[in-house]
């Protein structure tokens, strides 16, 4: 049988965190548990290993790549087709410094955006668990379960913790 997500909407953050605690205590692996929220809560409140982001490093890396590209484009095109203008050197360092910087920023900005989409796995067309109450501020715990016994167990644990509404979402 296919995997099923148990989707439990809570109206309290503390209750949702308690539900996760119960799931972990019942040996549900942390990687199968997630929380959907309408607000970015500090990640440590859930007691789950916090996801890490490499966006800053990627943006910095592409900033450097962009700088190299910028300088190459500015000086390379000047060098390929050297047209002297007004006693300015063909490779005019101060002018090309500006181009270098602007290219670096363009690369950095777009790399940050694209990396964000990749890292957050967006946009997605997949059929993933969701609860419409998330956008009204209800923290919602999702657990991925492989067999029916687990599904029932997870649901009862979450209800015990105070879940207001529990759905089952087959993948």
């Amino acid at each position, binding site marked *: 049988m296919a995997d099923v997500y148990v989707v439990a909407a809570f109206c309290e*953050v503390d209750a949702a965190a308690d539900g996760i605690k119960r799931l972990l205590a019942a040996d549900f692996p942390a990687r199968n548990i*997630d*929380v*959907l*929220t*309408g*607000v*970015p*809560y500090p*990640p440590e409140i859930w007691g*789950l290993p*916090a*996801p*890490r*982001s490499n*966006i*800053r490093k990627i*943006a910095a890396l592409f*900033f450097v790549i962009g700088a190299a590209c910028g300088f190459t*484009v*500015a000086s390379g*095109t*000047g060098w*390929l*087709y050297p*047209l002297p*203008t007004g006693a*300015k050197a063909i490779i*005019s360092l101060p*002018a*090309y410094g*500006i*181009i270098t*910087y*602007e*290219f670096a*920023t*363009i690369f*950095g*900005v*777009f790399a*940050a*955006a694209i*990396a*964000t*989409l990749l*890292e*957050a*796995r*967006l*946009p*997605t067309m997949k059929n*993933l*668990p*969701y609860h*419409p109450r*998330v*956008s*009204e*501020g209800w923290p919602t715990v999702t657990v991925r379960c492989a067999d029916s016994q687990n599904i029932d167990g997870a649901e009862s644990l979450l209800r015990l913790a105070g879940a207001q509404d529990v759905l089952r979402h087959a993948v």
Partner: protein
Amino acid sequence: MGMIVHPPELYPDEQINQDVLRPVFVTTWKWWILVAISGGGFMAGLATWFYMMATGMWVSGLHRPVMWGLFISNYVFWIGLSNSGTVISAMLRLSKADWRRPITRAAEAMTVFALLIAAQFPLIHLGRTWLFYYILPYVNQRQLWNNFRSPLVWDMMAIMAYLGGSILYLYLPTVPDFAILRDHAEGIKKKMFTLFALGWRGTRREWTTLNACILSLALLVLPVAVSMHTIVSWDFGMTLVPLWHTSIFGPYFVIGALYSGMALVITIILILRWAFGWQKYITPFHLDKLGKIMLVAALVWFYLWFNDYITAWYGKLPDEKIIFDIKNAGPFYWWQMTMMLSNTMVALPLLAFKKFRTSPWAMFILTIFINIGMWIERLLIVVPSLVQKGPSFTWTTYHPTWVEWMLTVYPLAGFTVLYLLFVKVAPLISVWEIREDKVACATKKMGQAELRAVVAE
């Protein structure tokens, strides 16, 4: 001390959704009338532009040696207006100022639209607009490239960097709000918001990534905003034209842009406040804070202006004195006086009073006058230096024609229509961010007072 003026007064989430999302779903006849008026102005401006393209630049008042006139001063003005949105949002985000939340979205949108409008002026003023792409570094079989030594190419690169950064900086933080809209919308709007929301669900990974992304973008975009306004100033500073050729133009343009942009941010949030009944979200507290930032900008602007003024006044270099005189005693005298009156003599003392800063009507009127003053300032930078440059045999005067005045109204109409359309696409107060504020802030009783407490990361 002690009074908590700053929202939100712990509204329930449903209330926030209702208050902030209503303008997206509910369209009133007033909105249609505004769209009709500004859309009409926009179309008329567009028609004027095409008329000029079809007939030739002679329909403008430009002539030798006044090669740049109202088109370029409008350009500098709108570039300046575009400054403050992304800048103020990025500054406040990076400094973790909690009061930023209700104003960031409206400000960021302002940047994007003002920039889209401003970027048209270099095209409007081209003699052969249809060949504008020559300025882009594109690969072609003739191996012709653009001239990276030209300030106009720096300008083009800076606008692309800032526009790209600002659009992403507006769009990505709006994705969670599009998810909220998707959950509330029906029919075609649901389809549209589903597309915009990219399948956002609000997982921990999504939030962590988004926050990291917003911070990276803020860090990248803030200096690029400074670079863009500096480069616009270099369009003038790199020349040999008297009173253009000055190194103070860089910081002077940046601070002038911050000044006029802050004024527009305040004008816009006040209009939103009245139009949508957001008095609980956009409060005198925000006006006070923004007013203080504007006061600092006004002081620095005047300081740099005075530096520029006194250098020319004392130095009396012959070429510069000619231009200095027509600005300060000649035909441009009254323009100069109007600018100083609205931007310094009136604005500075008034902004110093908290009572003034927290009064919506007073701030609304003042910010409009500041922007009129800043528009004049741009005119005074561009035109006087050109009318009497070079051999005195070629000196002239400049009288804009109806075409140039139409294309001065055009950006205002265009900006308004873009903004009005945006109201129907996204909530102008970031819903998730004010909810975040609610999560992060609480009131704490201490002695006899209830004080505001913030959860720090």
